[in-house]
C-alpha cells in the first residue's frame, strides 16, 4: 500500500454571487499518494481550478476537510503551484521572480542564490536570468512559472492547466521535460496534482484521472491509467484509454 500525502473528504466550496449562495463543488473525496500524478479533467465551471486553489491554501474550504499527512516541519513547503496565466511579477526579472518565491525559505543567502540558479538551469532558462517577463515567449514564461514553483522544493506540485497557453509543440516538449524531471531521484517533488482540458494530456501524464462534472462540480468517475512510462500517444493501449475517458466524460 502506498503512503498517502493528502486526503480530501467531502470537500465543498460555496461562494456568494449577488448575495445568493452558490456551490461551486460538493462532496469531493480522493487521496493523493506518494509518487503519483493525478489529473483532473472536466468541463469549465466544475471547480477544477478552485480545488487546486483550496489545496494551495489560496481559498478557504466551505465544507469537508483537507488533511495533509506530512508535518510541515519535515519539508519547508508542502505544496507549490504553477498558474495557467503564468502569474509572473511583470517588473521583476526571471531571476528576481524565482528569488521572490524562495525568499521565505530558511536557508542562507548563498544557498538561495544557488537554488535559483539550479532551477534556472534545470528548466533550461540560462541566458534569460535578467530578462523581463514581457520579453519572453509564452513557453519560456511558463518555464519560469514551473521553475519558480519547483524552486521552493515542494512535496506536492499543483499545476492549473499548465500548458493551456502554449502552442502544441511547446506543450508537448514541456510535458516530457517535466516527466523526466519527476523521474529523477534528485527531484524533491514527489507527487503532482494537475488540471487539464485535454484528455490526451491527462492520459499521457497521470496515474489516475479524476473526471468532474455538473454544477456544482462533483466527481463523476476516477480512472486508473496503468501504462508504462514513457507513454506512446500512438499506441492502441493509449488510444483505448483516451476513448474510455472520453466516453466517461461525455456519457
Amino acid at each position: 500500500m502506498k503512503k498517502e500525502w493528502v486526503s480530501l473528504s467531502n470537500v465543498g466550496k460555496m461562494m456568494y454571487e449577488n448575495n445568493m449562495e452558490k456551490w461551486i463543488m460538493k462532496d469531493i473525496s480522493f487521496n493523493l499518494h506518494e509518487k503519483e500524478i493525478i489529473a483532473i479533467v472536466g468541463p469549465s465551471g466544475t471547480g477544477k481550478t478552485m480545488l487546486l486553489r483550496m489545496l494551495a491554501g489560496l481559498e478557504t474550504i466551505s465544507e469537508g476537510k483537507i488533511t495533509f499527512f506530512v508535518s510541515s516541519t519535515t519539508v519547508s513547503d508542502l505544496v507549490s503551484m504553477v498558474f495557467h496565466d503564468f502569474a509572473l511579477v511583470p517588473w521583476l526579472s526571471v531571476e528576481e521572480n524565482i528569488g521572490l518565491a524562495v525568499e521565505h525559505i530558511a536557508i542562507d543567502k548563498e544557498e538561495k542564490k544557488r537554488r535559483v540558479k539550479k532551477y534556472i538551469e534545470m528548466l533550461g532558462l540560462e541566458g534569460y536570468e535578467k530578462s523581463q517577463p514581457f520579453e519572453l515567449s509564452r513557453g519560456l514564461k511558463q518555464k519560469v512559472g514551473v521553475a519558480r514553483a519547483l524552486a521552493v522544493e515542494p512535496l506536492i506540485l499543483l499545476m492549473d492547466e499548465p500548458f493551456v497557453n502554449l502552442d502544441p509543440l511547446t506543450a508537448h516538449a514541456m510535458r516530457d521535460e517535466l516527466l523526466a524531471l519527476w523521474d529523477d531521484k534528485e527531484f524533491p517533488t514527489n507527487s503532482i496534482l494537475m488540471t487539464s482540458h485535454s484528455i490526451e494530456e491527462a492520459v499521457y501524464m497521470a496515474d489516475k484521472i479524476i473526471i468532474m462534472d455538473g454544477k456544482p462540480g462533483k466527481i463523476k468517475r476516477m480512472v486508473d491509467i496503468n501504462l508504462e512510462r514513457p507513454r506512446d500517444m500512438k499506441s492502441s493501449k493509449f488510444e483505448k484509454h483516451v476513448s474510455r475517458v472520453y466516453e466517461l466524460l461525455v456519457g
Partner: protein
Amino acid sequence: MIEVLLLLALSAQRMLIAYLLCLVIAYVLGYFMAREPIIEKMLMPILDVLQSIPILVFFPPVIYIFINHIPGYGTDAAVIFLIITSMVWNMIFSVYESFISIRRSLKDISQMFKVNEFDRFFKIYLPYISLGLIPNSLASWANGWFFLIATEIITVGHETYTINGIGSYIMQSAIKGDIGGILTGITLVSLLIILMDIFIWRPLMNMSSKYIRGKKESMIYDKILDFRPDANINMGKSMKGVSSFIDRYVLDNLAKLLRSNVFGRSFDMIKAVIKYSIIISIVALLLVLLNIIYGMLPLVTIGDILMVMKAFVYSFGRIIIAYMLCIIWIIPAVYLISRSMKYEPNVIRWMEIIGSIPVSAIFPAAIIILTSFFGNFEIVAIIFLMTGMQWYLFFNIYGAYKSMPEYINDLKNMYGIKRQDFIRRIVMPFMMPFIIIGSLAAIGGGWNAAIVAEYVSFGDSTFEVYGIGSLIHNALIQGDVKMMFLCAMCVATAIPFLNLCFWRPIMKRASKKRGSLV
C-alpha cells in the same frame, strides 16, 4: 530673457512642490482608504464631491485666508494649495483602486510563496501602484498647468495678491501691449510642456503600459479621456460609503412608504436627490461650523443669495452658449478630419500640441486681439469660455468616432441603411457616452474658465460681464469674505447636483444602450 526663464522656473517650482505633496497625500490616503474601511467610508463621498467642483471658485477665498494667516508665504501657499486641489483627486483614487484591485495573480504569488511584508510592499504593491499612477500624474500635470497660470493671472493688478511667475508675466505683457512678451511667455510655457511630454511622460507612459496593459499609448486625447469627469460619472460606484448607509437606513424605509405607481419610474431620481441633499447638508453644516469658529461670516441675507443665484444663471447661460458653439464647429470638424486620410495625422498632431498648451496662458493675448476686434466684451467672454471647453469635447468626440469598429460601416453598406437612420440609430448611440464624458469635462472646464474670463483688468480699464466670475473677483478686491464664500458654495453645490440629477442618469441610459450595441 533670463528674467522670463527665471519666472518660468518659479512657476515650475510651484508645480513640482505641489506634485510632490500630491504624491505623499495620494500614497498615504490611498493606502489607508484601501486598508481601513472606516476611513474609506468617511473619505469617499467627501473626495467625490470635492473632485467634481470647479476649484477655481475657491481661489479667491483661499488666497484671502492664506494671506491673512500665513504672513510672507501666503500667496505661494495659496497657489500651491490650489494646484494640489487640481491634481490630487485622481491620484488618490488611482492609488486606492490599485490597492483594492491589485491583480489576483499578484496576490496569489504573495500568498503562495509566503512573500514577507517588506518584499510584498516594495516589490509587488509599490511598483504596481506607481505604474498606475503614471497616466494619472500626466493628467494631473496638464490640469495643474492650467490652474497655476490661471491663478497667477487672476492675481495681477491686486497689489497684495500678485504672484510672480510665467502666468503673471504673460498677463503683464498683455497689459503693456507687449506682443513680443506675450509670445515669449506662451512659447516658453509650451516648450517646457512639450519637452516634459517628450522626455518624461512619454517614456514613463510607455513603461507603464508595457508592464500593465501591454499596449502603447501616447496621444493626448488619451490623457483627456482619462480626465477627472470620468470619475465624476462613477460617483455611484465610489460613493458607496455614506451612500449605502443612507440607502440602508433612510431610503429603504422611505421606499416602503413611498413605493406606489405615482412614483414608479422617477423613484431613482428622488432617491438620488434625497441622498445628495443629505450629503450636501452635512458639508454645509461643517462649513457653517467653520465660519462660526472663525467668525468671518456676518449674517447672509436673502438678497445676497438671490444675487449669487442670478450671477450663477448668467454664467451658466454663457457656458451653455459656448458649449453649443463648440458642438457646432466640432461635429463637422471631426467628420471632415476623419474623412481626409491625407491630412488627418498632421491635423490631429497639431491639435494635440495646441490642446496641451494651458488655455489660461492664451487668455491675455486673446483679450487684446478679440476686444479690439469685437469691441463687445460679452462676445469675447464667450469665446474665452470656448477656448477653455473645446478640447475636452473635440478629443472625446474624435476618439469616439475613431474607435467605432469597422464593421459598423460595413453594416451600413451591406444592408443599405438610410443615412439618417444610420446616424440616429447606430452612430449616435455608439458615441453618446463619449460625448457625455466630453460634455461633462467641458462644462467643468467652462466654469473654471468663467472665473478668469468674466473679469479682466487692464491697468486702468476693466472689462467685465455679470456672472459668478466677476462677482467673486469684485469680492476679492473688496475683501468681501461673505460673498466669496457664497459664490464658491453656490458653484460647489450646484455642479455635483447637476452631475447627480442630470449627467448620471443620461450617462447610465447611454451606456446601457451602447452596451447592447457592441
